[in-house]
């Protein structure tokens, strides 16, 4: 049960990272983590470190790329950006996410009613 749940969360996090990189362009790990926290209005309390597992998975699938650059405080940092296949994947995933969400929502409402 717990394994299933973490898997869902993993997928969700990957999707959020992908979306973040899509809207923000190139970002380092810290930036991605901060952005997700802000957007979710601090509702999502994650260890910022888990972002990195997500980034590795997306890199391996070829949906994002990485390059070393310089951060705003003049430090060397790794910047991530979405690739074309990543964008395609994001569209597909977002669509299916919305569909599932609406289905689940309908089911839950029906049960309540």
């Amino acid at each position, binding site marked *: 049960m717990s394994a299933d749940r973490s898997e869902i969360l993993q997928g969700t996090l990957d999707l959020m990272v992908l979306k973040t990189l899509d809207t923000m362009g190139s970002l*380092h*790990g*810290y930036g991605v*983590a*901060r952005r997700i926290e802000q957007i979710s209005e601090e509702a999502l309390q994650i*260890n*910022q*470190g*888990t972002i*990195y*597992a997500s980034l*590795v*998975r997306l*890199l*391996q*699938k*070829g949906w994002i790329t990485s390059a070393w650059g310089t*951060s705003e*405080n003049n*430090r*060397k*940092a*790794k910047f991530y950006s979405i690739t074309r296949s990543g964008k395609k994947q994001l569209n597909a995933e977002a669509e299916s996410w919305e569909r599932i969400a609406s289905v689940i929502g309908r089911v839950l409402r029906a049960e309540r009613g």
Partner: protein
Amino acid sequence: MFVFVRMFASKIRSWISRRREDREFRQELAGHLEMLTHENIRCGMSPAEANRIAHVRLGGITQLQETNRELKGLPMLETLVQDIRYAFRMLRKNPGFMAIAVLTLAFGIGANSAIFTAVDTLALRPLPYRNPERLVTIGSREAHHPEAQEWISAPTLFDLQDGAQSFSAVAGISPVWNNIVTGRENAERLESLYVSAGFFPMLGVQPAIGRDFRADEDARTKGANVVILSYAYWQRQFGGNPAAVGQTLSVSQIPFTIIGILPRDFLYLGEPVAGTPSQIDLWMPLATNPLIARPRNVRFLKGIGQTKDGVSVAQAQQEILRMGDAFAKQFADSDAGLEFGVAPLSASVSGRLRPMMLLLLGAVGFVLLMACANVANLLLTLAGARGKELAVRTALGASRLRLLRQLLTESALLSGLGGVAGIAIAYGALRGLVALAPATLVQGRTIHLDARALLFTTAAVLVSALLSGLPPALRILSADAGIGLRETGRGFTGGHHRFRSALVVAQMSLALALLVGAGLFIRGFVKLLDVNPGFDVQHVATFSTQVPVTTTSTVPQVVALDRALIDRLRQAQGVREIGAVSRLPLLGTSLGSTLTIEGRSFSAQEYRSIEYRVASPGYFPAMGIPLIAGRLFDDHDDSNAKGVAVIDEAAAQQFWGAQNPVGQHIKLGPNPEKQDWITVIGVVGNVHHVGLEALPVPEVYRPISFSALGSPIIVARSEGTPAALLPVLTSAMRSYNSALPVYNSFSMETLVERSVAQRRFLMTLLSGFACAALFLAAIGIYGTISQSIAQRTREMGLRIALGAQPRDVLKMVLAQGMQLAALGVVIGGLSAAALTRMIRSLLFQVSPFDVGVFFVAAITLCAVALFACFAPTLRATRVDPLVALRHE
């Protein structure tokens, strides 16, 4: 799908540069922490507080690094590398163990690879021709003579070529009855075949130089005198000069133009139709065979056909049978009672070898099984010593699967090393095998390790890894981890005794089965060598030659040549008796003839076939063939030579029974009405003409004055050894007429040896495997008993301390070993009895349940087991009770 490939590639890249990736990730995290700390400070925290909170927010650095490594790496590969490294360390710590295990496996795997390679080349691989599965042999024989060779006549061949719809081509092959002398330099006799023009295209073979036969050079009965040479002969005689094409070769005084040279790797693998396994040197158009215009009752051709694409052998067979029926009606005189047959060419080439080859493969497979059992036993011993370590690892949470993988990696490593060494062993063994193998078996094929052999070796390695590694691994893992922790030093070993015993019993059974198999073959072989061939093997030498016959020679002229030659050789030093014959014994059946007896009518079904030889008067005394009744030929038979014949006892028995055949009148051949009566003048002893293992068949001898020998086979009985006589005969031939060739010269002992060479080869290999099995079984039982005694040192000490005599201890331990051996003998005996039934067809006059063989095998095995148990047992009796009790 594509994503997986990309992920895998990326993982491999990361794994290769994993150190750099690790360093970069640390930098990345450090940067992250710094940014987070800055942010916290900006929010008003003290630097120390900011740093602490940053660490909390990010999560444990070590844990993150671990996750990152896991994600990026190849966990499977990493543990594998770890396992292999660990296994290497284990084995390095036990070099003796490692050497024994690797050598045992190398021996087993090497022997298997070598035998597989030989078996594969000789009997399993498709023939080296184009579309070999479409090539079939077509033949016919008299229905009541099923053991006879299959032949067809020239008119039948033409009918098949014209009428058979199932075939895209039908060719005839004909051996050359009259041997050939070339006119170049020294007279030389060459193996030659007449073949249809369509023969080489059918096999997908093209001459390397020059051209193939044209259709007009083999137009039914009208042929052109052209010849294609083998690559080997071309190299030998023409030094590989391409200008040989176009030159003429005098073949039996007839000039033939050389038109082509066959490719170097071309092998004729058909049945040795010329009666010899050596490769064919000359190929001539079938139409140049003098027999080609003979009628249907002269059957001298081997038919070979290529079925049309999509036509099965069964369909082709159906059609040929239908055609055969039609021939029988249309040509009742010659074709009635003939039975046609179609069989894949591969069956005639390798089919007869297959049972023997599979037996070898099975036997050597047993040896590998035994080697695996020994290594399993060794691994178990090693694991015993490591019981504590494994128990600790289990207790610390290593999963069973992980430990299983670890143990299997060790056995795989051993098998892999064994495989590498095994290939070296196989290489050497194959060379020995090829040197040992009789020429009739190898037929000029090259046997060497190739990709298929390596593939087989790999499979053997994997099987060995599983067989030697899995049983002990499962055994160890099923043992209770707690015991290992509690018992100091001894680890798991205590519980393995039964398992080990089972391994020993299995080994004993396998060894017994192999011993019985080898024993049956040895017994059969001894019986075979005991068979009296019907002639003097010890004192007779033979060689073949040719007398200078021309196309205009008359029979009396050739007879005079034969006589002059024999008379001249009789003068040679050391010759006691000398004679000539048309064909030596032990060479299988020849064409034979049909017997007609005066005053008797045979029904169509009745057996009336008789083998046929031409012999000079001196042949019988020279060969030591005894006269049973009547008289032999003499030189006075000239006047009425056509009218006399000598028969053997088998013929007398078969056709006359108790009656005296001497003085009876017979006719020979399929058309008796055209012939004169022949008087039987004598009966001689039986000779094993077909082979030692076949019963003597009815035989009729005619005098040379009736059928002169153009290529007589001379047999000479020597005063001394036949080997000493051979050079004397050769020089006598030289001084008589140096233009006459001398070939196939050997002693009768050689002839007998050649006829049993295949059996001897099989028996030698099987005996070798049985010895190896015996050795492995001895090691197995030795190891198990030693181990068991080592474990029971304390018990032994106690017993001795309590007053047991060394004799009692000796008895106890030996009894334990012998129990295992006895159980193995019983199980092995039963399985052997089940297995030997399958080799019945390969045995000569030995029952597959021969009690003597089973008994001797069982005694041998028990004796070896007893011997193997003795050393560790003696050690047990010398246990010092004080030392033993302090043990552990």
